[in-house]
């Protein structure tokens, strides 16, 4: 923890190095860390599963660090700065879960039946029992059962090897796996927002990226994984990018609004993929899916089943860092943000607005394509009819939740990943429809979009004397 305290300084020092030095450092880091990745990921999963312990350790570390740095006032300041932005989102999640809980309790036929037969209290009792079962399952399915984890830790070294431990960290792993496409797609939409573009076509770009990556994955054989995997990833990303760039090009050239064109491209993707999957690319008649990709194109897993976390997660984090770097540290990013914030001023500054639109759509599409790639190469390893999961549409909400900032998008995606991962367990154990999770997600979005509601409920003090952070969203439908 003390080390973490030095990091801002360290980061700044590294940041001052020329680009190639930083790239070398990054590659070196990956090469050094990769052999231990299995253990690092396991550690990460355990840290998530035992988050209260992690939190306490963190606080303890901070307290120790504060001894050298000015004691409580320093620690208070540090916490304030780090937590300020988290208060409203955290309360939003809690409130959304409470309301979701009410929905679970009072949408169950059995509850009303119990009320009629055994009186109101009987019904309420049943409702709470349902709620408890449901939320316990939601928690276990997404963050794991802490007690089981502790027990499993005690068995490490036994004859079953890592087996028991893996089984108990499946929840955290599922959460991370589920958040991967969310991160990519959320970044895609956020990047579009920054350029003033409303990319509604992420869903279609995901499909294209998925399709192309899978086709490259199975049609080329005999390549070593070092060549094949990056090739498949790149192919999927570029395909998604080019697909989206069509909309960017149309906007730049003819002024066609990207909302319309990307929606239409979505339909083209859906129909095209349906035809391809039940036609030319079909494995055998009647299967409506492609054959499986070659092993050399697998996005490798860190651990074994049932812990399915794969390298896509690391790629997603890297993509977030790169997106942030691109947007906020490069001249292209500056152009993109300027065009998004004020196209007139961009023209005045000598920027080519049309070119920037195309570039922004291309990059946005690349990121969305990567969402498909990560699903295709990391999870399904083929593509079948019905692959659409709605990530593209959820990602719009994610970008809004994350204020179009990579860090925010990653945070929001993790939240959505957690909820989605727990949904299956909740349904299988408690019979609560997975849609509840969508209700909770929507409520979180509403609360974060209108923080005044949360401030009013919890009587939070308004942020004041702080620079008003201006989130750059799309310039709207009329833009």
């Amino acid at each position, binding site marked *: 923890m003390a080390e973490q305290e030095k990091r801002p300084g360290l980061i700044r020092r590294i940041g001052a190095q020329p680009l190639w030095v930083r790239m070398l450092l990054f590659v070196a880091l990956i090469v050094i860390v990769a052999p231990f990745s299995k253990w690092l990921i396991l550690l990460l999963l355990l840290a998530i599963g035992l988050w209260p312990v992690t939190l306490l350790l963190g606080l303890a570390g901070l307290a120790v660090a504060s001894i050298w740095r000015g004691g409580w006032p320093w620690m208070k300041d540090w916490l304030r700065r780090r937590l300020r932005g988290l208060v409203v989102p955290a309360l939003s999640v809690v409130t959304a879960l409470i309301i979701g809980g009410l929905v679970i309790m009072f949408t169950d036929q059995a509850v009303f039946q119990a009320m009629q037969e055994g009186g109101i209290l009987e019904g309420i009792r049943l409702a709470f029992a349902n709620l*408890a079962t449901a939320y316990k399952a939601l928690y276990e399915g997404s963050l794991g059962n802490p007690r089981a984890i502790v027990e499993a830790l005690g068995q490490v070294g036994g004859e079953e090897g890592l087996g028991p431990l893996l089984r108990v960290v499946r929840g955290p792993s599922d959460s991370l796996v589920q958040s991967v496409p969310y991160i990519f797609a959320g970044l895609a939409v956020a990047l579009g927002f920054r350029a003033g573009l409303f990319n509604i076509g992420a869903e279609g770009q995901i499909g294209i990226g998925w399709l192309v990556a899978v086709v490259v994955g199975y049609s080329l054989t005999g390549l070593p994984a070092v060549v094949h995997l990056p090739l498949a990833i790149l192919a999927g990303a570029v395909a998604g990018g080019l697909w989206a760039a069509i909309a960017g090009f149309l906007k730049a050239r003819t002024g066609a609004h990207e909302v319309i064109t990307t929606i239409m491209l979505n339909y083209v993707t859906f129909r095209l993929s349906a035809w391809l999957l039940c036609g030319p690319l079909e494995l055998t008649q009647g299967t409506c899916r492609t054959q499986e990709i070659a092993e050399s194109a697998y996005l490798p897993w860190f651990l074994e089943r049932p812990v399915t976390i794969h390298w896509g997660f690391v790629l997603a984090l890297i993509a977030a860092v790169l997106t942030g770097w691109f947007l906020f540290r490069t001249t292209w990013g500056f152009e993109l943000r300027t065009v998004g914030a004020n196209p007139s001023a961009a023209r005045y500054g000598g920027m080519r607005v049309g070119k920037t639109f195309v570039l922004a759509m291309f990059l946005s599409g690349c990121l969305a394509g990567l969402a498909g790639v990560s699903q295709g190469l990391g999870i399904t390893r083929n593509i079948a009819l019905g692959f659409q999961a709605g990530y593209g549409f959820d990602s719009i909400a994610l970008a809004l939740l994350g204020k179009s900032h990579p860090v925010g998008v990653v945070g929001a995606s993790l939240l959505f990943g957690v909820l989605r991962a727990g949904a299956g367990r909740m349904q299988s154990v408690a019979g609560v429809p997975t849609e509840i999770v969508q209700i909770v997600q929507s409520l979180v979005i509403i609360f974060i979009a209108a923080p005044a509601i949360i401030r009013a409920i919890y009587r939070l003090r308004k942020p004041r004397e702080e620079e008003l952070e201006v989130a750059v969203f799309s310039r709207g439908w009329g833009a």
Partner: protein
Amino acid sequence: MTRILEARNITKRFPGVLANDRVGFTLKEGEILAFLGENGAGKSTLMNILYGLYTQDEGEIEIRGQPVEIQDPNDAIALGIGMVHQHFQLVPVFTVAENIVMGTEPTRFSFSWRLLGWLGGVAALLFFLGGLFAFENLSQWLLAALAGGIATAALYGLLILLGFLSRRLTFRLYFLLVAAASVALLLIRGFVLDPSPQIPLLVFGGLLFAAASYPAMRVLATALDRYVAGRRIRTLSKQYGLAVDPDALIADLPVGVQQRVEILKTLYREAQILILDEPTAVLTPQETDELFEIMRGLVAQGKSIIFITHKLKEVMTIADRIIVLRDGRVTGETSPEETSEAELAEMMVGREVDLVVDKGKASPGEVVLEVANLTAEDQRHQPALRGVDLFVRAGEVLGVAGVQGNGQTELVEVLTGLQPATGGTVRILGHDVTNASPRTVTELGVAHIPEDRQEDGLVLSFPVADNLMLCNYYEPPFARGPEIRFDRLYEYAERVVAEFDVRTPSIAIPTQNLSGGNQQKVIVAREFSRPIKLLIAAQPTRGLDVGSIEYIHRRLIQKRDEGVAVLLVSVELDEIMALSDRIAVMYEGQIVGTVDADKITREELGLLMAGARPKEEASQEADVQETKGGIPVG
């Protein structure tokens, strides 16, 4: 008259700026105290401190002799201070009465009540969570509850220490009572009558129930409030002569009446001291007069008013006493009887203000900009330029005069590459730049102060620093490879901001938080800090205060004297007359005449601008021909 409010040594620092420097003043009961100052002089900061939006770093405030601490607007309202902001805080789709009542529902409960509420609530939540896992018998649960309680106490203690929870209001008594009642009820049922292990769930349920019924409670209370409020509003408006219909929708009311609603709002909250922040900025002269009537009425009934403005005439009309602020300091305290407008202006700006720009004779050099037979269309594809001919030489100012909408906007846009020409040629330093890209033009050494600074010249949501590199972000020193070197940018920005006297708390704050004059200075700083050969300035001082106008004028002339060719486009005749060496008059997309500035009077210029050919048309034509003939060709 007694002192109702006294402020001493108020000091407020923002990062990099001393917004208020030991400001002190007293406000007496029943007087109108005017605060006069330029934009950014610290008037608004001071008022925001009084109203609790900011907290002063140093200094004391006393109200009726009692020292007070104003933490937030609720404090201010409780102390009888009301503020009418420059931008009204009204909800357009609500009625007058609703707007007035909004936010006045009584909501305060003591700290300990709140803490108890939070403790109870979160303990129950943790209790619930604990029950989900692992605990199988009562004693375990009790332990969990105890642990939960301690953890909660710690958590909330921490949050309060960190200042996340408002010190005034967090939990509602209502919520607390219902929650406690539900919990008690369910505990009784659970423990005493039917020992079932579902207790934590029941406790949780009590809280849920309380939370769910809370909105209904509020609606009820609001309805009650509204009834009472309607009656009080009528009384108040009669008493102070503020004619407003409480049931009218805000959206349907003119600005002047909306302002009255704002005033009523403060009166409704029993304000004794009214702060009016630039109230006349949005009003027509008639409405201003009405406002002054209202103000006199309020004062007559014992209210005290603080009136903020930068308009000298208004101060002389309405104020009992005047305090002038400059750079966050009080530079003068006087009254209308003792002073004059000129004296006030001097106190505001800090020196004698003279609109006649002090400039020497121009020494024109070679032709820098040459426009021949230029034609262009406006946005509706109607001809806007119908064959414009003009030239500007190094070291001279060519003023383009004309009534707005005679093609000046299009002229500037075509010259800077922002809009295509349909015919003719533009040459800068001998290069043909007809229909060249904006970047080509910029790189030739052309600076452009755009007519609409907020639309074209700045990205308002970006920090000041970023706006300073808007035109050359891609070149060293700002760029290294694909990356922007923000360290270099910030160094540069700090230097330039200091050099051009841009009043901003920090180079990192969004440009939209700056006043108009300072925004314009950002543009000037950016454009003048590059090596330039030609300056195209369109309406460079529109909407600015006296000091800023003077500053920008001085800078323009300074550039001229450095040998830059200046094309000044302005609809302000005074500005054209003051700055130009030669004046070209534009009418319906053509230059109808170009004359030397010292050979023409305002009246003649006005006639030309109106499209009337002056009597000595022939000689004017000859004059133009002559100067035209003097252009070195090629």
